[in-house]
């Protein structure tokens, strides 16, 4: 019996080494441990034929063999299982350099992006955004803005007129000043911006017959030219960065007095002078000024009472072209690109 156990052990160890996969291991398990035909099971049954002392020793040896076989088979099974996971993972390899499955990606128009950036700066300063109509009348576009009929300044804004109704397309968003003051929910205080499309009969590389502006208006007691300066500086620094200087110089607009042109240190050359700033180191960026008393008077006249007494309230207004901001930002030199809707242009912006 002792020799049989030793021989069986040697056989098992040799066969276990040779067993390649899970099915070979299962066959091995059946051959040694099977309830009906297992070799160890057969020897266990044969124990009954031995004497008591011999049976005790042989039983101990057989139990040791059984444990040896079981643990050997279990270890081999675990090894085989882990080998097949590794093989499966290897089979499942993807080419991680192929493009991903992107959710569709569109874009906002660069002028929308610029406009919303401008709006956000003024929203943060407590401004309200006011939308006025694009189809306007002479009163809101010119007359109330101190540009009566025959005023030479009307030549600067070649106007599109509608065939009927005495209407026109607004030439500037300054119309928003008048519309807001006439419908102001908390007169005489005003703090608004009016973004939107405007129209002039011009079409060349620097002019589009349709373009976009943002007008701003602040009215109240004690509003000063110093407030105009501080507000515009804060706005331009927020938009372009505080490293660019801002310069104010007297100018002329019929609806402001004093009128102020605002220059920004050239963002291209940093002020040294280049083609973009025509060697001046400055970029003309926006117009502004203190609201002309005649504008308040025109609004009062239409309201039929003195709501904006020029002796009591003052204000400042400003206006800038949204295309101008986008052109300075992105180095664009042809305004018409914004309206040609060529995807080769639009897709350059992250949107």
């Amino acid at each position, binding site marked *: 019996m002792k020799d049989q156990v030793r021989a069986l052990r040697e056989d098992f160890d040799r066969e276990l080494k040779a067993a390649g996969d899970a099915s070979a291991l299962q066959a091995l398990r059946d051959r040694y441990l099977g309830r009906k035909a297992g070799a160890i099971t057969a020897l266990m049954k044969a124990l009954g034929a031995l004497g008591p002392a011999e049976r005790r020793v042989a039983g101990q040896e057989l139990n040791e063999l059984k444990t040896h076989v079981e643990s050997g088979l279990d270890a081999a099974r675990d090894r085989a299982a882990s080998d097949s996971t590794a093989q499966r993972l290897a089979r499942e390899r993807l080419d991680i350099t192929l493009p991903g499955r992107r959710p569709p990606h569109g874009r906002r128009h660069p002028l929308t992006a610029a406009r919303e950036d401008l709006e956000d700066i003024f929203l943060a300063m407590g401004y309200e*955004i006011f939308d006025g109509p694009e189809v306007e009348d002479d009163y809101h576009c010119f007359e109330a803005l101190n540009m009566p009929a*025959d005023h*030479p300044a009307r030549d600067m804004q070649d106007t599109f007129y509608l065939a009927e109704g005495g209407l026109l397309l607004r030439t500037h968003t300054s119309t928003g000043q008048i519309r807001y003051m006439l419908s102001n929910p908390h007169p005489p205080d005003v703090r608004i911006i009016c973004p939107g*499309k405007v129209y002039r009969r011009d079409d060349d590389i620097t002019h589009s017959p349709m373009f976009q502006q943002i007008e701003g208006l602040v009215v109240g007691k004690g509003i*000063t030219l110093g*407030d105009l300066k501080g507000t515009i500086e804060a706005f331009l620094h927020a938009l372009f960065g505080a490293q660019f200087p801002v310069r104010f110089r007297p100018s002329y607009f019929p609806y402001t007095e004093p009128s102020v042109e605002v220059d920004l240190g050239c963002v291209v050359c940093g002020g040294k002078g280049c083609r973009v700033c025509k060697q001046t180191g400055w970029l003309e960026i926006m117009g502004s000024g203190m609201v002309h008393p005649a504008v308040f008077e025109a609004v009062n006249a239409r309201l039929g009472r003195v709501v904006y007494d020029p002796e009591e309230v003052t204000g400042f207004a400003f206006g800038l072209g949204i295309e101008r901001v986008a052109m300075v930002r992105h180095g664009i030199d042809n305004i018409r690109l914004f309206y040609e*809707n060529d995807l080769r242009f639009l897709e350059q912006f992250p949107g």
Partner: protein
Amino acid sequence: MKVPIGWLREFVDFTAEVPRLADDLTLAGLAVDGIEGKGDDAVLDLDVTTNRVDCMNVYGVAREVSVLYGSALRPLPVDIREEGPPASGAWTIDVEAPELCPRFCGRVLDVRVGPSPAWLRGRLEQVGVRPIDNVVDLTNYVMIEMGQPMHAFDLARMPEARIVVRWARPGEKLLTLDGQERTLQGRIGVIGAARGALGLAGVMGGASSEVSDSTRTVALEAAYWDPPSIRRAAKALGLHTEASHRFERGADPEAPPVALARLAHLLAKIGAGTARPGLIDRYVAPRPRTRVSLRPGRITSVLGAPVAVSESRRILSGLGFAVGEPSEAWTVDVPTWRGDVTREIDLVEEIARHHGLGRIPSTIPPSARVEGLRPTQRRDRKVRELLAGAGLIEVITYSFVSVDGGPGPAPPLLRLANPLSAEQAVLRPSTVFPGLLSALRTNLRQGRHDVRLFELGRVFGLDRAFPEAAPEELRLGLLLAGRAPGHWSAAARAVDFYDVKGLVELLAIRFGVPRPDFQPLAGPSWDAVLHPNQSAQLAPLRPGRPTEYVGLLHPDLVARLELKEAPLVAELDPARFDLGASIRVRALDRFPAVERDVAVVVEAAVPAEDVLAEIRRAAGPLLREVQVVDKYDRPPVPAGRVSLTVALAYQDPARTLTGDEVQSSVDAIVAALRARGWDIRGE
């Protein structure tokens, strides 16, 4: 306007280098656009704002320089020695239209016409004026120097040596100096003669009395014209000259006699002639002098910082204003060359620009109110974000389009009276037709096939009340063409109706508003515009709202536009997405849902929505959700019919459902569907 430095130095001394002078002028409101040359030979190119006609001449700029640097302004030399018989005996001037010509002055000069001396020719060439002869050159010289346009007539060629300033007679003809024969219509002023006209008042002289080599005696005029009259005439004639440019902006009514004397002075100086005794001065409608009251406190309240009283007074008097005694309100007499200054605020500006805007401290006014985006503004931003997020690219097309309008019930179109071209003559009634379609064509021409665009902008011509409500409204246009966004892992597929419908559904879901009801196109206005069986119109938000649609372009229109494939388009009213009611949260389900599928075979023309409606009617209260999950139309489904697989979900918030309850609802559904004559598959 060109200003030679050497010419400036005749009237004012300054030590600043030219680039520094240019900066100082710019910061005082006279923008220097460029500098040609160096030192005393330099010429400044000034961009003078339209209100500052007083600076459209060398002397006016010299006055600004004198205030900038606190340097005295030298008077113009105008002394003359008169010779010969009195001027008034040689020349008769009558002003018949004082409303046109408040002041008309003349002098008679005996001249020797010839070339100008080199210095005079040099000055004119510096400012870009071609020298002609000494008489004409001097009129140009004096205009550039002091801003007063003048005209020299050959007295011998002036019929009866007489001038009548009057309005043109209808149809009156005149050959102007530019060689054009003009027929005058409307209210145009002329310098008339005994017979016919000699020149256009304030705009251009005539050829008939032009000075020539043989001229011996010159009738020289300088006038002050009514600005609106000159402006209207120049506009009507389409003729804009140096003279009209100045007169229409309001010249100096005191300048004509001075300019005549200045010219006579220079004429004698170059040895080309002398003036006869006497100035002929027809000041028929004297201009009122402007006096303005200025409160020093007002300067502070407008600028936000005080300016020293002495500084304010120095600036004003340097600019020619006569300032009264210091008090609460100074009396300020405005010089005659400053027609642009009419009220207190104008004086504040004069002080501010010479004090220096840079010296005013910057402040930010405190904000008293909380503001933010209005609901519609927030909506518009969200629409753009969502559509960009869904793969569409935003475009902005022109608001003016060709005369060809869009589809749908045609609104009254708004037309431009003065369009740039016939292609831009009408305000667009739609964002799609033709805006988005032309944007598609632009990109197809570039070889792009897969194009997904949207535009959110105003359309015009809707039937709105004038003039209180504007005839314009916001619209959202969508356009999809080519293939759906794909990946190398799957076969490409063309976009179809359900892609664009899905975008509309996505917007409704993301705004928390009810999903729109898609209905078949109705009415003849869609014929040959949209595919009748692959398009829908949306149930209107409210009666009377404009039509909104989703669909495939009609093949006829596709052919007419020379497109290879039909794009899908949609036009929507963004008001449809006005943010929905605030959300009330429902308790989370504590008991499981039971799911069942039913496959029903119907005629191909039956809308799925009809099947779903029948199911909802028959199901009873436990049915939570029902949706189509598959559509199948190949064998064994008979031809002309389709099989729709519908997923049903049952749930009760208070308990677990039994199998029998669910089965009896499914049985009721099956019975109801069969009652409609539809078959149930696999049941």
